[in-house]
């Protein structure tokens, strides 16, 4: 019997995803573990691997790239070799055709045997096959089209021989989006959904504090050249704030609690999410235990997560975990802002730019570089008192940065 290929649930809250593309063609012989198609959830795009063996059958009503699909929806079939032989006796493997594989599956070498209810290969309007038959899409353009959820068949190529290049995709994306509102990117769709969900279902409250960042900035400037020279990693203020947040979580386990399906659970680790801005939106990969190890380890993690996010290479598990996140707009003109808590977490720390500002030191007004912090908190999980204590720990570490070097 043919095995159904269904849209899987990626993470507990997923109800639907965006189908991106098939990674195999109709008639391909599939082994368990072979990547079958790419599916985008609210967290990240992921290659879905086959759990079974067989010959892939893609029906003509299979989802188009960019189409939103429900979890459990059947998008294709895996047929066994026997079934194919039964359906089409002409396609019976013969000696010398080389189409019997070690695993017993059959790969059509000349004419793919096609069951009556499926459209033969070549007529299926599927991204990969279209691109391959035209042979005039650059790999980079193909990748960009998938990233933007753009149907490449509507793009006109301007490269040599009409090849579609990245520039053509970007141009098409910028002109088609306003006129076809349905076509905005799947990342934008995910952000729209998750922020709306969080802001409407999570009772937010906000605690603010202004930090004297003189010692913090001086220490970073001291450490920066050394670390950059030895390890080639630029230590950022973000790394130091992540460290402070991780250490505060460690001191104050209440802040590791989250609201999960009508109950409160406490996460075991002091992981902290970091908001990474991208041209099309944002991602929140999670830095693991920033309170532990040396500062370099935090900087390395942060830098590789940010790079992966920008390259579109974040894996699903890099987006999972953590009760709190950091949104640092230190490089922007924003002095002070409040953030929406990421779904599944209980707080978000928003940090504006560090600027020389009047600040009272020893009863005198002095000019000091300061940072304005705003902690958004989920009231279902934490009340004002404990939340202030958590914020207090963060402020303490940022104003006594020597503690950050040592870590937990």
């Amino acid at each position, binding site marked *: 019997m043919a095995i159904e290929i269904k849209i899987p649930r990626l993470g507990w809250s997923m109800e639907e995803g965006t189908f991106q593309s098939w990674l195999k063609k109709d008639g391909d012989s599939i082994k368990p573990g072979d990547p079958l198609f790419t599916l985008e959830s609210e967290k990240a795009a992921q290659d879905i691997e086959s759990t079974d063996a067989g010959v892939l059958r893609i029906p003509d009503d299979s989802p188009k790239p960019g189409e939103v699909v429900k979890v459990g929806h059947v998008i294709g079939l895996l047929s066994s070799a026997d079934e194919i032989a039964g359906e089409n006796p002409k396609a019976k493997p013969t000696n010398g055709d080389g189409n019997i594989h070690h695993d017993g599956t059959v790969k059509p070498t000349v004419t793919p045997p096609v069951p009556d209810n499926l459209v033969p290969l070549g007529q299926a309007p599927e991204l990969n096959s279209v691109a391959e038959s035209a042979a005039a899409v*650059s*790999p*980079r353009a193909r*990748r960009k089209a998938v990233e933007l959820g753009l149907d490449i068949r509507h793009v006109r190529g301007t*490269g040599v021989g009409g090849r579609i*290049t990245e520039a053509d995709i970007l141009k098409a994306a910028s002109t088609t989006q306003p006129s076809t509102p349905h076509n905005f990117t799947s990342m934008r769709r995910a952000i729209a959904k998750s922020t709306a969900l969080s802001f409407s279902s999570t009772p937010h409250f906000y605690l603010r504090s202004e930090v004297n960042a003189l010692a913090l900035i001086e220490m970073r400037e001291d450490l920066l050249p050394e670390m950059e020279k030895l390890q080639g990693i630029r230590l950022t203020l973000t790394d130091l704030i992540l460290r402070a947040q991780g250490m505060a979580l460690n001191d104050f386990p209440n802040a590791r609690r989250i609201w999960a399906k009508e109950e409160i659970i406490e996460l075991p680790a002091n992981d902290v999410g970091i908001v990474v801005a991208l041209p099309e939106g944002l991602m929140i990969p999670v830095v693991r235990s920033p309170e532990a190890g040396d500062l370099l380890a935090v900087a390395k993690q942060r830098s590789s997560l940010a790079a992966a996010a920008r390259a579109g290479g974040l894996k699903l598990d890099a987006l999972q975990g953590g009760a709190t996140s950091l949104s640092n707009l230190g490089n922007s003109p924003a002095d002070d802002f409040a953030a929406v808590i990421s779904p599944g977490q209980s707080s978000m720390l928003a940090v504006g730019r560090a600027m020389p500002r009047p600040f009272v030191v020893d009863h005198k007004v002095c000019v000091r570089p300061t940072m304005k912090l705003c902690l958004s908190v989920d009231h279902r999980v934490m009340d004002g008192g404990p939340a202030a204590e958590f914020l207090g720990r963060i402020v303490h570490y940022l104003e006594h940065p020597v503690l950050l070097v040592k870590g937990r």
Partner: protein
Amino acid sequence: MPAKEIIDVETKSAKSLAHEARRLYRQMLLIRYCEERLAAAHKKGLVHGACHTYVGQEAIAAGVCANLSRTDMVFSTHRGHGHALAKGMEPRQLFAELYGRETGCSRGRGGSMHLFAPEVGMMGTSGIVGPCILQAAGAGYSFQLLKQNNLAVAFFGDGAVNNGAFHEGLNLAGIWKLPVIFVCENNNYATEVPFDYAAANPSVAARGAVYGMPGIEVDGNDVMAVFSAAKRAASRARDGDGPTLIECKTYRTRPHSEGMADFGYRTREEVEEWKKRCPIQIFRSRILAEDLLEESELESVEKEISEMVELAHQYAEQSPFPARETAAIHVYAGPADPPAALKEAIGKERVMTYMKATLEALTEEFAKNERIFVLGEGVGKRGGNFATTTGLFEKYGPERVRDTPICERGFVGLACGAAMSGTRPVVDFMFADFVLDAAGEIMNQIAKMQYMSSGRLKMPILLRGCIGIGHSAATHHSGSYYSTYAHFPGLRVVVPSTAADAKGLFKTALRSNDPVLFLEHRELLTSKGPVPEGDYMIEFGRAKIVRPGEHVTVVALAMMVSKTLKAAELLEREGISVELIDPRTVAPLDVETIRQSVAKTGRLLIVDEDFQPFGLGAEITARISDVGFDYLDAPIRRLNTVHSPTPYSPSLEDAVVPHAEQIVIAIRELVKA
């Protein structure tokens, strides 16, 4: 002369006479029994490849090696089992090697023709006829330079004496009075070609005079004759009087290689006649006739050796085969990774020429390391054709700055032997084109030596020469060759484009334990640039981003770097932003830096003065399509020198090599593609 008189030069005691006779007999017998056991093992399929036995020639290895100490060095040929055993290799290591086992003397990497035991001075056997002669001369050079009272021996057959290595090696050893004994085992056949057919002058010994050394002919089946001749040659070498050529007349009574037909080129009768002149039987009769040992003592030696050989066979048969995952270990001595402290140049910068920058590196390293020496034509008083050694001869003298005759194969092979024996040769070729005469020494010997010796020999050798087209140098002074060398495992290939890079990379090369081809573009030698003072090293396999850009990545090397820079400046005005990467070393090649750049730009052009087919551009293209396919927005392009020999006439020369204008056009097309 009676055996006891020959042995008796140093001692008169009867006990010691008996001891020496027993030692020689035992040695010959060990070789014979091992060979017979190995021949049987070959029949059974235990020996997987070729097996060239030494049966009939045992007196030569035994007689010569009895005069050597552990720190003297032996270099041998494809018929080398006997030499290895006589120099002190354990029989079980020999067996295990032929059986392809992990416990073999070369850890299963060599087999019958690549036997290494440097720890006892067995420096290796070679499947190629001739190189051992040059390598022994090189070891002699090391001994002379390091003032060690050792000597080197080359064993080779009559086939080698009609080969250039013989003539070049003997001449070099002759002019520099190197402590070497050249032992020709004339067994009448080079494989199956009779020597009296192959040699216009069939006396090998007579050739010694041609190269200013004694040439002695001895009966190679008489161990005492060989012992005696080798003794005189060894004293002569140790006394600083130079090399000796010994021709040992002998015969192998088994086929060239086990399993080969033996009577298409010689008769059964001839073989039987020689079997009667068995060196072991001759010596045994002599021992008994001269009352040196009792028959029972000889029998006990025979029994002992017989048991030892059986144990060696069993040991080898029971040893494991080397693990598959170790197959590519020992190709290189290790990453040429400079210490962190030296990675950054901190010295004050001065503007100087590329040529002066490498001279500065060489001069600084010369002062620090007395094992470094330079070989080349005109490097001595003249200071190098391209002023590569100016000032060094005056300061360090001829042993460290050595003018050579015009014999590239000879001095490269000698440098190979020198590196094997503990010194650090710098070979200065002037033009890289000349090196092709020595290609076999580089590709078959220098590149493979660390691997064949399973990492026990290091090959710290720097081979430098000019590459590149310009000034109507024509086709024997214009080649680039870096792709050719990079094709071979075991070599590092460095091609700097600036003075500062040249100095830093030269220093890394002079401290690397791997052989380095250091190729300098002749048109860059007088180019000037800032060069830091003092010590700094540039890691091999670390490309430089010469110029950051957005729209297209260009990889260029040597002279093509400045040409591409010029092109990039022109294109900047058109709004095309070029990122230029100079790999600096071709092997190892920094693919990651190129990949990162292509990830940004989506377009890649390789500008390469070497030939296009199978070249640097092809390699980079394949590697980027492996790791960066999804970043590509257009096909990868290459711009190369025309695939033809380099012409002389300026108009033709100009037509074959890429110029900035062509680079501009190629980039424009690529950006539109």
